[in-house]
């Protein structure tokens, strides 16, 4: 059976302000989906809601993984069920080494029934695997000794996110602007890494403004978000069109959604939402 992620009429509010207004999405493991849309349309909100951020309240609708409701699960339960979010802005955890954090996370995700305090993956085994993955991603092994995202450059943070993706091997991964803030070489490296690690193995939901990431990871489906709704879905040609033409056509075709988007953008600029 192929794993599925099914979102139906999803409404999400942040501090009682509605952001998502009825999102529907069907993904199968092995598919690559691009999620595009102007600023403030709710793309990151969808990612955070799928992962279960406590500030993103699902007011109605469902998110199901293989028919199982994720909405009632805590973020760690969702991770153990096989969902991953590569953060647009990863969070620093000073004093915690990336390797120690990843060993703990990897153990929990691979052994979803593990109780707190039970043994972690043996150190040797874990180190060997981590080293292999880091070499695959052309990362310096010393990097694993640094504190999680603490003092990382933008590029280092994104690569650390990809390393976590490689280690945790989720069924579905949401990549929230994993290419932003990177120079051309770094984007190419990130794109190739994602293709190697995730493409056809995971269900990928790639949130991006650019097409570079999509060159290496051509999406079977492109979704356009505007005003908290997925207003259009197409193939790779839609991604190409948005990249070269921008969102003018979309804004004109969906004036109501565009008005919502403008309103949300005003609020978001006043008070940034992740």
């Amino acid at each position: 059976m192929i794993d599925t992620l099914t979102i139906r009429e999803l409404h999400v509010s942040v501090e009682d302000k509605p952001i998502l207004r009825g999102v529907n999405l069907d993904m199968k493991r092995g598919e690559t989906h691009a999620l595009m849309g102007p600023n403030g349309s709710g793309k990151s909100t969808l990612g955070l809601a799928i992962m279960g951020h406590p500030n993103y309240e699902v007011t109605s609708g469902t998110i199901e993984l293989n028919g199982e409701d994720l909405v009632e699960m805590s973020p760690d339960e969702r991770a153990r069920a096989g969902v991953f979010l590569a953060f647009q802005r990863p969070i620093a955890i000073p004093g915690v080494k990336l390797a120690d954090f990843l060993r703990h996370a990897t153990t929990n995700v691979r052994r979803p029934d593990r109780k707190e305090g039970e043994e972690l993956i043996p150190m040797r085994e874990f180190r060997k695997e981590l080293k292999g993955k880091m070499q695959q991603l052309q990362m310096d092994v010393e990097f694993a000794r640094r504190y999680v995202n603490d003092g990382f450059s933008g590029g280092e943070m994104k690569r650390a996110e990809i390393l976590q993706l490689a280690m945790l091997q989720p069924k579905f991964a949401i990549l929230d602007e994993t290419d932003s803030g990177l120079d051309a070489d770094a984007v190419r490296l990130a794109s190739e890494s994602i293709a190697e690690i995730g493409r056809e193995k995971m269900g990928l939901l790639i949130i991006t403004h650019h097409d570079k990431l999509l060159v290496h990871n051509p999406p079977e489906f492109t979704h356009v978000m505007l005003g908290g709704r997925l207003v259009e879905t197409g193939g790779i040609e839609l991604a190409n069109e948005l990249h070269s033409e921008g969102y003018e056509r979309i804004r004109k075709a969906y004036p109501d959604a565009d008005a919502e988007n403008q309103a949300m953008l005003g609020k978001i600029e006043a008070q940034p939402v992740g």
Partner: protein
Amino acid sequence: MATDITQAAPSHIGEINKYDFRTVTEGVFKAEKGISAKIVAQISEMKGEPGWMRDFRLKSFEIFESKPMPKWGGALDLNFQDIYYYLKPADHQGKTWDDVPAEIKETFEKLGIPEAERKFLAGVKAQFESEVVYGSLQEDLGKQGVLFTDTDTAVKEHPDLLREYFGKIIPPHDNKFAALNSAVWSGGSFIYVPKGVKIEFPLQAYFRINAENMGQFERTLIIVDEGASVHYVEGCTAPMYTTESLHSAVVEVVCKKGSRCRYTTIQNWANNIYNLVTKRAMAYQDATMEWVDGNLGSRLTMKYPSVYMMEPGARGEILSIAFSGAGQHQDAGAKLVHCAPNTTGQIISKSISKNGGRSSYRGLVRVEKGATNTKCNVVCDALILDPQSRSDTYPYIEVAEQDVSIGHEASVSRIGEEQMFYLTSRGLTEAEASTMIVNGFIEPLVKELPMEYAVEMNRLIQLQMEGSVG
């Protein structure tokens, strides 16, 4: 002698403590409860001390009586007449492991001391109740002229050396509890490192309080001669009791020209213990003194390790961590006094408060007249785990010179929602995530600890954190 391992955790304390066991001990001699000149003299007599020490004790007792209780710090609800001031558990000190009485050995085995010795220790000195009962020191240290003994033995065997410094760094009139310790002290370590001798491995001592209502008043004196270096480590664990208990130690350190001393303490006291300790070092020309101090448990801890930088080029560093849980108040900090030019100091203080615990940082940086071109940096970070808990900062800075550089940074943070979400989104439970954040918070101190203490510290934090959800 029968041994009774009592799982005596009072339910109202509600904290898990793996050291919560007691071994039934038959003290050979127990002074009566309470304190008086008669008891002070009796202690001195029991120990067979010379007249000067007896007089020092009696004089200190007068000072103790004349001083009022401190009005600052934490709430001191102490009845000095309800405490035993001296208990001698065995007739003489064991020279080898085989000589140590079986019952006391068992307590040490629970603490893992023999094992630790095999692995790491150069010399183990362990204090059981009021007196050191087991001590061994590697031969090569002895050959280099290093003295490592309990302070009672030093009074008898090295009286001239001891007397030159004893009570000179921290005189009895310094504060009420230093006076009390000076009157009734027992045990503690005496270390002398001769000129140029660098001890590569840490010297360690373990001790614990193990008699209900019994105070522990150890007295430690470390003399590091010119160009020498030493790292001394003490770890304390204590079983839990339901009645008040007092620990009041005095630690004096002298760092002579070009020497280096690091003094590391990890204390995990039972929740009913008052832990009131005076620690001070004098650092002379180009000498470095470092205090690394971890305080867990206790009802109230008041402890401010200090370094007096007496001559040019001296350096003082103080790293401290306090963890306050339910019903606990850690009033901990540091004191740096720049008495000479070109001296440098650093204070890094980290505190964690949880389940209504209270942590205070109380620190003093003083630059005396003439101490030009001095540098001092103070960083204190507090982490508060829940809304019931509390953290305060009392930084005092007194500067009598112009040409100085003093930095002070303080931060108070709560475990961030975004940090929790990030970690839990990778499969860590909330409890695992908050433990990880706390361990990361104290990592700068833990990485300074010898390996087995670092492991122990992380495990103690784990125990403190268990059951806490961010």
